[in-house]
């Protein structure tokens, strides 16, 4: 059969010569390889003191952003939940009452918003789907827990605090911003 990659090798099962059967040259060759590794640069990162830098496009724990006036951007349209391949997102929508205009940007908001961090595969499709620029994946790690229940993150953990907004600009590279500009949902402004 013709090789498609051109890299396949035909295996020849020939009799071993005396030198090969002694195995000593092979053992010395192997020992030389391990000896070389002895002096190689170590790949260990001494973790608590030194943290490995995340890549610029690292997708970690989600955040639900607020707008400039501190109102929640999410309108519970459910596009993120629909786009989620792992079905990790659920939400319940509610109508904004009078007097809540400072809290929610539009008439509809998410009364409940949950992401199951055990199901989530951190693909970032929710962020891509979001018409309101409300959900972003950040460079934070999801911490470990002892109970499965604790991995279901509600709004208490997902919505960013009013006084300390979470920086999501790191992943918003020029290419990403260009892409978002051409999004069909122009009502985002």
């Amino acid at each position, binding site marked *: 059969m013709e090789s498609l990659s051109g890299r396949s090798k035909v295996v020849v099962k020939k009799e071993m010569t005396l030198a090969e059967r002694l195995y000593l040259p092979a053992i010395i060759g192997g020992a030389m390889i*391990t*000896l070389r590794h002895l002096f190689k*640069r*170590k790949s260990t990162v*001494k973790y608590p003191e030194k943290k490995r830098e995340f890549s610029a496009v690292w997708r970690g724990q989600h955040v639900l952003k607020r707008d400039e006036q501190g109102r929640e951007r999410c309108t519970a349209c459910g596009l993120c939940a629909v786009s989620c391949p792992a079905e990790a997102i659920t939400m319940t929508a509610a109508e904004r009452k009078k007097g809540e205009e400072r809290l929610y940007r539009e008439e509809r908001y998410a009364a409940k918003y949950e992401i199951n961090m055990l199901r989530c595969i951190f693909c970032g499709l929710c962020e891509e789907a979001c018409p309101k620029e409300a959900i972003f994946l950040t460079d934070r790690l999801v911490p470990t827990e002892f109970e499965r229940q604790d991995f279901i993150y509600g709004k208490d953990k997902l919505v960013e605090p009013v006084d300390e907004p979470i920086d999501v600009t790191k992943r918003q590279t020029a290419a990403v911003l260009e892409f978002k500009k051409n999004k069909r949902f122009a009502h985002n402004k």
Partner: protein
Amino acid sequence: MTDYLVYKLILVAAIFGVTLLIAMYSTYLERKVAAFIQDRVGPDRAGPFGILQPLADGVKFFMKEEIIPNVSNKLLFILGPCIAMVTALMAGVVIPWGGSLIINGQAYSLQITDINIGILYIFAVVSIGVYGIMIGGWASNNKFSLLGAIRASAQMISYELAMGLSIIALIMITGTLSLKDIAAMQGGGVGSEWHLWHIVYQPVGFLIFIICAFAECNRMPFDLPETETELVGGYHTEYSSMKLGFYLFAEYINMFTSSAVMSTLYFGGYNFPFMNDLGLSPNAITIIGTIGLFIKIFLFIFFFMWIRWTLPRFRYDQLMNLGWKALIPLAIVNLAVTGVVMVLLD
């Protein structure tokens, strides 16, 4: 007389302490070498560069729960690690750790006792060491332990033959079984009588000896008695706490002792090149010689570890094939060739 006893006691205590210390730090070295060969850094949290790691390990061994299985033979279960440890420590008695120190006109030899059958003594003691493993494995009343013990005894007995045969060729050259005499034979300087190390005369013998030493110490290419992939832990599956520690410790002491024996038999022991030409005082020569011996031992221990992280484990039938069909015939041929050459040179 009291002088003599005090000197011997100090020497015994010193060698006992040094042996334990080196065994302790062999575990550290093993982990470091393993890590470095695998491009890691190894233990580095306990003290600078992790040099307190053996202490931490020791404390851990002592604090662990001691489990003696209900179905085991309790006396033999406890006896097993004791035998392994005692025999491992006993072998160091006849090894010449250096020449003689002259203090107040009296010569103090750095060897606990010079038996004129030193090599035989070491072989005898090492053979008893097998009992530690066999008894421990059998008394555990566990199939894995028993299999490990059977493998250990079969392996040690097979490899002892080739080891003994390779040694006989060396003894034919030296004409003595005393380790002190054998070590002294390899010394000298250009000005005085000059002797080459025995490795020059017995390269094949040394090769056989070192392969057998690997097998005797249950070290990596031949660590079938404790193959963790197939026998859980081999003969020490049921052991916990310091009894397990004793077994592991005995293994490292054995490694240290066999390195010392190899250095003494084939690599000049406490002798170093040009020892009589540098114009040093006898005491200085002795001290440098002892340091030299320990450097040789250290290199051998490193070699043990280096090979461990290079070669995969043998299959059991391959192990037996190598022992009986390759090493023993080779040792016999070596023996015959040595004899013929000696007769021709006479």
